[in-house]
């Protein structure tokens, strides 16, 4: 499990702050270095605007990174053109948040499942119907679903089809962006269990993007925490939950406490433009935090934190 499958090196993604042009740019992902290991489920957690979705889309080259590298099987995906990317796309698949909008409304389930098989010439045409049935069965749906249209399926059923479609090409990495957050609560557990089952059965690595810490804990082997474009902490799931080092991670985990106090601190400051992004909200901020962004520092094996003061802050 420790073998690296895909590596992001100093990856940044910028958007023009006021439409197109040479004006000021906003860095949605800011200098992120990260390994995704073969066969692991890596969770990226953060609030909206933290850059977690942008990170996922840049990794799949749905966005063009402004700086840095995406190293995969000896190539740097950040530099490849569309045509050169194509063989790699088969290896990197995605499941989106909203299942209904990720299907062509005029195609049947069978058409949608067959499309990737045709595009990538995976198997002889004659074998496609059998492959479609196998894909449905794998995600717990009866082959009777093949002739249905997306609007005839519930959100949970469609998300099953989306997972099935992503897996038809036997990818080595599946990116799931908030894949359960739009589903009904009573259906969410089914899909989480399904993701876990197919992951264990196929050994596909999953990059699981979520704002839900409970869900991340259930599914992920390792968790990375993002705050305004920066990766601020990365480590094994249980270490992140039981011994978090970054003040922001601690604040996020604090939201899981049972008690809600009416006197809880209620103001929120915007992120800092320079230095540590979290300094404006951090109770431990010192002078250096306002000027320099801290690099990721090793806490223990596989656990790193980007905080100037993590050694001084009592943890717990």
């Amino acid at each position, binding site marked *: 499990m420790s073998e690296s499958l895909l590596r992001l090196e100093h990856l940044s993604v910028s958007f023009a702050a006021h439409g197109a042009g040479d004006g000021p740019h906003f860095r949605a992902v800011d200098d992120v270095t990260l390994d995704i290991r073969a066969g692991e489920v890596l969770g990226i957690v953060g*609030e909206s605007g933290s850059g977690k979705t942008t990170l996922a889309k840049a990794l799949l080259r749905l966005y063009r990174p402004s700086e840095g590298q995406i190293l995969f099987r000896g190539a740097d995906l950040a530099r490849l053109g569309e045509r050169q990317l194509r063989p790699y796309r088969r290896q990197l698949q995605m499941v989106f948040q909203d299942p209904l909008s990720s299907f062509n409304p005029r195609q049947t389930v069978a058409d949608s499942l067959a499309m990737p098989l045709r595009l990538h010439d995976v198997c002889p045409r004659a074998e496609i119907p059998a492959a479609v049935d196998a894909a449905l069965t794998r995600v717990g749906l009866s082959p009777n679903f093949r002739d249905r249209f997306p609007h005839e399926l519930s959100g949970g*059923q469609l998300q099953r089809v989306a997972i099935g479609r992503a897996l038809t090409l036997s990818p080595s990495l599946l990116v799931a962006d908030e894949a359960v957050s739009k589903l*009904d609560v*009573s259906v969410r557990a089914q899909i989480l269990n399904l993701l876990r089952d197919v992951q264990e059965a196929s050994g596909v690595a999953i990059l699981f993007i979520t*704002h839900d810490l409970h869900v991340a804990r259930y599914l992920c082997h390792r968790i990375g925490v993002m705050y305004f474009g920066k990766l601020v902490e990365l480590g094994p799931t249980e270490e992140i939950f039981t011994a978090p080092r970054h003040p922001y991670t601690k604040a996020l985990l604090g939201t899981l406490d049972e*008690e*809600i106090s009416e006197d809880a*601190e*209620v103001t929120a400051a915007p992120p800092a433009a320079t230095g540590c992004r979290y300094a404006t909200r951090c109770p431990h901020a010192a002078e250096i935090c306002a000027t320099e962004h801290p690099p990721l520092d090793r806490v223990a094996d596989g656990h790193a934190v980007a905080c100037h003061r993590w050694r001084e802050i009592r943890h717990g």
Partner: protein
Amino acid sequence: MSAPILEIRDLRTRFDLHGGSLEVVRGVDLEIQPGEMLGLIGESGSGKTITGLSILRLLPGNARMSAATLRYKGSDLRSLDDRQFQALRGRSLAMIFQNPVGAFNPAKRVDWHLREVIRRRQGAQADWAPAAETALEAVGIPRPERVLRLYPHQLSGGMAQRILIAMVLALEPDLVIADEPTTNLDNIVERQILGLFRRLQSRLQAGFLFITHDMTVAATLCDRIAVMYAGEIVEVGPTRDVFAAPRHPYTQGLIATATALKGRAKRLQEIAGELPNLAALPPGCLFSPRCAHAMERCRAAAPPMFGAAAHRTRCYLAEGA
């Protein structure tokens, strides 16, 4: 126990559609006491939002609502004409929506909204500015004079929800209906807004109907909870009792999932199947097709509510409980 703020018996709401009509609220009974926070829990399509809108007469034109009892502080809301009802709504009855930015008039600044509310409360001559600043400070907005000058589109979701809560504080209503007020917010902001609801509850003698799909949120905030499924209340009781000993298999499933996610679960317990189609409801108990405990009688006839007054359950398993 004092007179309830709100008392509802057999609330039914039906939508007229092209090919007929669809009953989405199917005989709901609710009661809210002064100072009480009642959580109304359900998934999308369960009818929880329509229940809230029905109470406030905010339904779209193709909806029809009826109730055996609909009392606000002892007086019959059904007998009020639209003008009389309008005088109550936005004065004694307030609503907080899921999309806070959409609840503002986009062409007016924050100060206009607060002025409206404060003058509605204190009269047209009221000196609204100090009251507005006090209300904003009470919801943790540090320099209120700066925020008063902003337009709604300049507000973040959390800030907009804070301001709406400040408006409710200034309005001092008797009944607050909040529909998924934290669902679009990030964890940390959600936590802060839930804290503000605590603050509202302790400062106002109002009754609260807190609509949510999130068991965990309801557990931390509400005094009592009512669980809705396919337009019906399937279980209602004090939060502590319902969480300690849920009686309806649906409630049990929701709580099992929520608790398992909180711990280090090996595997999540699933509720099989999907929500029923309201246009083609199953016979008998509406949950029976998904229920692991379903018996023959469940499919034959819908169960009534069983149990003592405080904790009631629409399930044969709770018979004699």
